[in-house]
């Protein structure tokens, strides 16, 4: 699943033009500072396409339903553990001290993902934290090969909105693009995905993005 495996690099304008004309350019890559090994942050439109794949487009859904649909798509079991403070107060303190709100644990061998969040989080933060961790699973961040962690080519930032992606191991993901290489960007994108999911789940068929899929001309 390597991304930088191309033999021939073409100027970005040729590849973009070919895409508009529908010409498939397999085996080619775009030269430095262009797409393929780089991509933009997730847009609400791209998230809407993900919802179609999960069969949630135009429907109201809760974070639990999103989690179930995502787990079914990825072929893994996702467990969400909201730990009451009265049981394990040290979890809240440990997470708060480390500057985090929740944790995602993934076991490739058993196909299990566990999301752990403290029950004392404010309601909005709790919902968004769960969706944030689910966003990492949707993006395929859990599949990133360990040596790829923070690799980032500063030249890629010359083109403002394009960011380098990362190599990933075996496994399924929902996102069409590869996970981003930079950890901060991955966190930001997970926040965006959480925000889009919360709004889409509340608006259902009233979401303008859902309607855009029926109004293309």
């Amino acid at each position, binding site marked *: 699943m390597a991304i930088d495996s191309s033999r021939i690099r073409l100027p970005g304008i040729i590849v973009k033009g070919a895409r508009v004309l529908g010409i498939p350019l397999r085996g080619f890559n775009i030269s430095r500072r262009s797409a393929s090994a780089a991509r933009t942050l997730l847009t609400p439109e791209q998230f809407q396409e993900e919802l179609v794949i999960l069969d949630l487009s135009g429907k109201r859904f809760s974070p639990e339903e999103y989690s179930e649909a995502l787990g079914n798509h990825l072929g893994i079991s996702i467990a969400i553990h*909201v730990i009451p403070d009265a049981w394990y107060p040290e979890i809240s303190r440990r997470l708060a001290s480390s*500057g985090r709100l929740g944790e995602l644990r993934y076991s490739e061998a058993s196909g299990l993902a566990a999301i752990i969040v403290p029950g004392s989080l404010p309601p909005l933060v709790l919902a968004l934290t769960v969706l944030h961790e689910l966003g990492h699973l949707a993006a395929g961040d859990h599949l990133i090969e360990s040596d790829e962690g923070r690799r980032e080519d500063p030249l890629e930032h010359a083109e403002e909105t394009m960011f380098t992606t990362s190599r990933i191991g075996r496994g399924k993901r929902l996102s069409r693009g590869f996970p981003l290489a930079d950890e901060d960007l991955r966190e930001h994108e997970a926040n965006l995905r959480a925000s889009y999911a919360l709004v889409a789940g509340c608006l259902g068929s009233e979401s303008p*993005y859902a309607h855009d*899929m029926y109004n293309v001309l």
Partner: protein
Amino acid sequence: MSAAQHQQLVLGGVSLAAFVFFVCLILSSRRTWFGIFVAFDLLLAALMFGTVAALDFSGWRAEIVAALLTELPVVFVVSWVCLAQAGRLPSRLGALPVEPAARRPWLRTVLGTAPLFLLLAWGVAAIIGLVWPSPAMHAYAPAPPQFFLFKWTIMVPEGFYSALAAVVFVMTARSPTSALRLRIKNLAFSAGTFCLALIALGSTVFAGVRLWVSDGSRRGILETLNTMETCLAIMCLLAFAFGLTLRYTPAIAGTLLRQFQTGWLLAQERFESLKWRAVTTGRVRGVIRASHHVAEAANLQGLSGSDTEKALATIQLVAVMQNPSTETERITPETTRELYELQEQILRDDTLATKISWATSWGSHADEPQTVKSAPLHDALKAALELVDYHDEPVDVRARPLWHHLVAVSAADARLIDPARIRTQLGRQPEHHVALEAYHAAKSLSRSLTLDDQQRRVDHDR
């Protein structure tokens, strides 16, 4: 004027009339990128048909060139429709594919190849036509086999992609989550693209008739086919025009929603999580005790649950704003004011403010969910700003709710804010005295409970 020139003149006239209509459409509020594109395409078609009708062609190659040029507007419009359905147009022209294409990647790929294969077919037909020329503009004359090959090379892909687009529009219209107006719109576009597919089919039959049918009956069939082509062209244009006049405006504007998703929601989450971290790690001095006294006083006064929540959120905010540590340095009066102003904008859209909600407790759907409107932070932000960020403004005599006074008394007692300032600001209001009494009663109660608890422990130890 030959029969072919007559047919081109009719089609040119239809295209010109449709162009005028589409120009009116794009000058109105119902303008879309597709409408603009179709208007230019119709102008091109009218010019092509008009030129072909006006000129007298002296050779077969010239006739082939004329026939090729008149096909270009159709190739362009079918390509645009397929690319729009596949979501392959540049993002500013429309980034999303239609729902059936998003669900089926293979369909999206096939639709995305439309411009490539249509232009390729057009190019191949041009080579065939120019290498083996044929009387393309002699409508009723018998044609050689190469004319049939020339015509089919263009018409088969054109018919295939038009029919595919028509089917995709029908699938889109059938979706139960789509609004009624959008369903009708997609059905209209389906009718339009189906007419294009029928025109392509008619053209292939036309070529076959010219090749295989004998002189006696050929003219009658070809005249019928020409009339049918004209009717289909009119119906196609009417269907597209009808579809484009059906405008759908969602209840929530995309711009505001984008601002909400990438601005307010993330800012609110950051704000609340920073507050939670500061309180959980005990970095904000006195807030736990002050919160306890406020909750007790609210209980003594019989305040509602939502008012108690507002009071507790406010006391936490005041504590965090008055104790800027490394962790909480981003919660300043300035950032609080920015969030409050952003929230004010969101609250002006009643649909958005009431529709976006989240559960108050995980896994339980029994409780009423919180909305942007009902969440305590909005009132808490305002109250905290009034208590902390006053900039020596004159005394505000507006009455405040009891929970606000309770927070003021508690924050002053915990030395989070200046007690003298609170006395000047709120001391004249009767609720302030009620809050003072309730707060002190709660404090005494708490102290006596603590003493009782200590006594019980001593007794137990004995």
